[in-house]
């Protein structure tokens, strides 16, 4: 199972959630996508997005850089 890294730091609108969405689309089930983002809104967005789409949020770190690990369902 692959781990896909996305550097979504310093992105403005539409932001990291769209990058994550596209990465999940082209990934295999079970792949882990790691997103690094600086957009403060991403911290809440990624939680809401995973809940709605059924992908699993393995971990989420807050800070100047937010790091989310998401496993594709």
């Amino acid at each position, binding site marked *: 199972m692959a781990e896909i890294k996305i550097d979504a*730091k*310093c992105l*403005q*609108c*539409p*932001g990291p*959630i*769209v990058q*994550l*969405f*596209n990465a999940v689309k082209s990934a295999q089930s079970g792949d882990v996508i790691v997103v690094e983002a*600086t*957009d*403060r*809104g991403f911290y809440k*967005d990624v939680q*809401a*997005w995973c809940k*709605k*789409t059924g992908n699993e949020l393995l971990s989420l770190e807050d800070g*100047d*850089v937010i790091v989310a690990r998401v496993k594709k369902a």
Partner: protein
Amino acid sequence: MKQRLVVIGGVASGTKTAAKAIRENPDLEITVITEEDYISYAGCGLPYYIGNVIRDKKHLTVMNPEKFKEKGITVLLHTRAEKIIPSQKVVKAKDMVTGEEKEFPYDKLVLATGAKPIVPPIPGIELKNVYVLRSVTDAFKIRDAVEKEGIKKAVVVGGGFIGLEVAENLTLRGVKVTLVELLDQILPNFDKEIALLAEKHLKEKGVEVFTSEKALSIEGKDGKATALLTDKRKIDADMVLLSIGVKPDTQLAAGAGIELGIKGAIKVNENMETNIHDIYAVGDCAENINLVTGKPAWFPMGSTANKMGRVAALNLYPKGEKESLEGVLGTTVVKLFDINVAKTGLSEKDAKNAGYNIITVIVPAHDRAHYYPGAKNIITKLIVDKATHRLLGAQIIGEGVVDKPIDIAATVITLKGTVEDMAKLDLAYAPPFSSAMSSTIVAANVARNKLLGKLEGISPLELKDRLSDPELQIIDVREEAEYLVGTIPGARNIPLKEIRQRAGEIDKQRETVVLCKIGLRAYLAYITLKHLGVQKLKILDGGVTAWPFELE
């Protein structure tokens, strides 16, 4: 004989007046009378002492009578002025400890008696662990209770900035806080959509907030508060803080025949003179002029109190032209957990009440270059006079820096600037500090576009009211991924890049609201759709970012 100045009240404005007066008139004999045991304390720091952010008592009470003595000022603690006799130019006072009656003859008298908390006339206020917060002594008592009595649950009655600051500080000490507010919003001076955003944040931080709810009584056991009863529920609490507002302390003045003005505050002219010769009033006990409307107003703020003190001091023995304070804007800023909220000038409500025909904008932006680590969001609301394009007011909320942009807005309003003036300001920029187009300038430009008719907006409150209107269609032009995270109830998703091909899905006859995250993509969609013949088109002001209600 030496000229004598007597000042009644020794917190912010009284001590400011005395300190400036002695610098201006080194020969003046100055006596400051205060009924309290502390002088010149940091009233605005009290909530942070309760929160142990300010750890030590002595950091709040840096000054004492000895230090004033060094400056040539006599301070009398626990001495209460009981009567002013203007015809004899004398103040009668009483030592609260010894009971001794004293008389203070004056040549000039400055009233700096401040304000007192309003205590609601409800049963149970005499119980132990029911507090107000005004004086440094109040703060000592509250912190002692938190530390020594193991307070677990507190109710704060009143959602003004003092109540909110205490709610935050108690929460940070592990106390479960419930806030009860009579009005339908917290932060009563702010517009509702901004107050709702603040309320949302408080709730995320674990503060329970009940608005439109009336405190009826406090229940107790063994003389101690145990619960607050409201018109809707019973809230268990081992501490109750009453912070429903303050009123000017002007009994003494009224008794001397000094004229009162708005809200019972002492009427003063722009030189801080009352209607009685040689009697001045400064700080929270005196009224102000609202600089925008030119009408009397009452802004009981530490910042204003200090300015008034300086003006009065300069006018005791004017050397040339008198000093004046033409008015103030009621500029305020408050920190609530991770967000900051600020306001200056008129709110939308105020402006409408004052008869202005206005436009408003709500513009989210970053507080510095979006790519610079630590960049945070702020949302700027501007209130602009349609006829003159003058900025009337501003409110800013967000995790980012708000005090700088609100101070810019305050400056623009003070200098009677327009949004055109504001958009052209040459503001400092480097990535760690700001954006090349700073949030202030972007907001001013959105206002200009609105004034020019380049776009029409709908406020979040108005849209919320019309969500079930079948005439209305709402289009979210963000990417599908963002739409999935959460959108305005009922909104359909047509991403901006598909808007041209899919314009047929939009019913041209109906009223249409387009929205995005902050407003930029919605504006681009607006231009395209207008071009394609969609007429009744509006942009949601502030987009999803400033939407203060639930997303779906």
